[in-house]
């Protein structure tokens, strides 16, 4: 089976698909673009959003010598990949953290034999598992027999893009330019940002999170086709937050799951697992209904307090006794993210096909929810989606 097909089959499983990720290392790998790609297009492209998809798209356009600009709403690039330095002695991934496939997917994304650097990877195979059910803590270490995936050792997903793609495209990123309108009714596309500036291009590639499209935060002229609007409505985009807490002692397992063992929607994990560090950092990854209890709290302090109280209840007060510092990343409150990542229903492949269909040969789409060749809802999937979009765009 080709890696592509395999990935497709498990695309909707979110974190759960990680059980299979190690299998993928044996599958075929290769360039994401055909060698004989015909580049016919010679105009200007505007890319909306500088997340994994937007940066990859820009990196490819630069390679093909096509004029482009990225309009990014936030003051920095990365989107849902974000790095926190200085918290402890290793960098923390506040967004995308795990590598849910064979890490060599990065070779495909960079696709440049000149970039001869080694990337250090941790085999993320936690050994101690606990499950909290009805207030009772149970050991479930047998999960270590089959759960395994990868993480960066000393770096992050953000570093990967920042070090190997951004240097090629940095001068073309326009920060703090939230796009509010895309008018594709004329010969050229006119894009308006929140500062009232208009930008013109021949084509536009939209890579914003689907929350932005679902909530109509960009005014398309003419409006988006009905089938796209209907397709967007079928995709769930639940709330999410991550919290990291440092303790002077370790009292927790490698993973503590607070819902079903195979759900992985509410997990606490040793964020220092496999890192060369003496610091004890516990991460919280909480998505969906469970996340609502935190994301709507009035402040980060309130989130930390709540989580400490919960940990104290589980571990007999040891959390507050050994607590040093904490940080909260509430993605649901980020104005240009507004949640987590796409959760598809049955028939997601046709939904993706509908979403990525270019409009009038002028408006193209990419992003984690729009990957027709691999996993959705992931960092590398977002990168792969950019390859698909650019392949179409440069040929037209």
């Amino acid at each position, binding site marked *: 089976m080709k890696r592509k097909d395999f990935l497709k089959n498990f695309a909707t499983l979110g974190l759960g698909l990680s059980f299979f990720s*190690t*299998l993928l*290392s*044996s599958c075929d*790998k290769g360039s994401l673009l055909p060698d004989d790609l015909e580049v016919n297009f010679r105009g200007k492209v505007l890319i909306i959003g500088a997340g994994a998809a937007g940066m990859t798209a820009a990196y490819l356009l630069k390679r093909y010598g096509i004029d482009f600009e990225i309009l990014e709403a936030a003051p920095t690039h990365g989107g849902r990949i974000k790095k926190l330095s200085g918290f402890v002695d290793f960098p923390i991934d506040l967004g995308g953290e795990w590598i849910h496939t064979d*890490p*060599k997917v*990065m*070779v495909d994304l*960079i696709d*440049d*034999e*000149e*970039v*001869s*650097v*080694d*990337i*250090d*990877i*941790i*085999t993320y*195979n936690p*050994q*101690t598992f606990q499950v909290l059910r009805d207030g009772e803590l149970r050991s479930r*270490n*047998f999960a*270590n*027999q*089959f759960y*395994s995936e990868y993480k960066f*050792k000393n770096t992050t997903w953000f570093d990967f893009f920042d070090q*190997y793609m951004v240097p090629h495209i940095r001068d073309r990123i326009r920060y703090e330019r939230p796009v509010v309108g895309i008018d594709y009714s004329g010969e050229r596309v006119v894009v308006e940002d929140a500062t009232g500036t208009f930008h013109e291009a021949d084509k536009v590639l939209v890579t914003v999170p689907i929350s932005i499209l679902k909530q109509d935060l960009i005014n398309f002229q003419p409006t988006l086709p009905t089938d796209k609007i209907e397709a967007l409505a079928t995709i769930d985009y639940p709330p999410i937050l991550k919290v990291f807490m440092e303790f002077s002692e370790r009292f927790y397992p490698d993973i503590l799951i607070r819902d079903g063992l195979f759900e992985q929607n509410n997990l606490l994990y040793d964020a220092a697992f*496999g890192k060369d560090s003496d610091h004890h950092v516990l991460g919280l990854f909480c998505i969906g209904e469970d996340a609502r209890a935190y994301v709507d709290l009035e402040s980060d302090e309130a989130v930390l307090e709540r989580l400490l109280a919960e940990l104290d209840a589980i571990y007999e007060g040891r959390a507050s006794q050994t607590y040093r510092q904490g940080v909260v990343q509430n993605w649901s409150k980020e104005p240009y993210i507004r949640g987590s990542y796409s959760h598809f229903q049955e028939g997601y492949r046709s939904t993706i096909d509908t979403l990525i269909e270019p409009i009038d040969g002028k408006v193209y789409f990419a992003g984690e929810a729009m990957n027709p060749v691999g996993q959705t809802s992931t960092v590398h999937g977002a990168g792969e989606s950019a390859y698909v979009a650019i392949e179409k765009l440069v040929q037209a």
Partner: protein
Amino acid sequence: MKAYLFFGIFILLGFSARAQYRASQLPLSLAYYGNILINPGVKIGTEWEFRQWEKTPAQNASPRQHRLSLDPQLAFFQQGGHRSNFQFHLDLAYRIQKLDRRRYATWALGLGYLQQSQVVNWSFNLSDGSRQDVERTRRHYVLPSLSYEWGFFSSPRLNWYSKFSFAPWLSAEAANTLSLQVEIGLKWHWSTSKN
């Protein structure tokens, strides 16, 4: 192709033997062995029979052969491409077979030693994906086990079997865990039994 040839010769040789479907005193086994089916490995083993008796449970019922043996086994299996496991296992096995049938069933209590070597840290080159292992860790486990085996003689000298073993993995230095091991293989009865 080679594998088919190998099995073909095995089966042909088997049919040339006396038509008696019983375990020999020292059968040899070769099996696909894994911790859950997707983690591949191999196992070889033999059985040292130390007691055997026959009983007819009721009139007109076919006689049953009961057999006790000590079964040493050696196994190697991979997990997720980064864990290599070597295992030595000894089963105390109780086998029962109706003498006019080709099927048999075995229950076994066992004890094993497993050494696991895991690549915990590795690197790859961004230009071509070439990979280097940076750090390995070794873990040692003792595995008490409970197994059930089901087998079928396709010829007097050859039987196919599948075996399921439930085993806690106990370790002084690593986290205890447990697994269900699956084994599918064949046994070659190169000298037939006393009876």
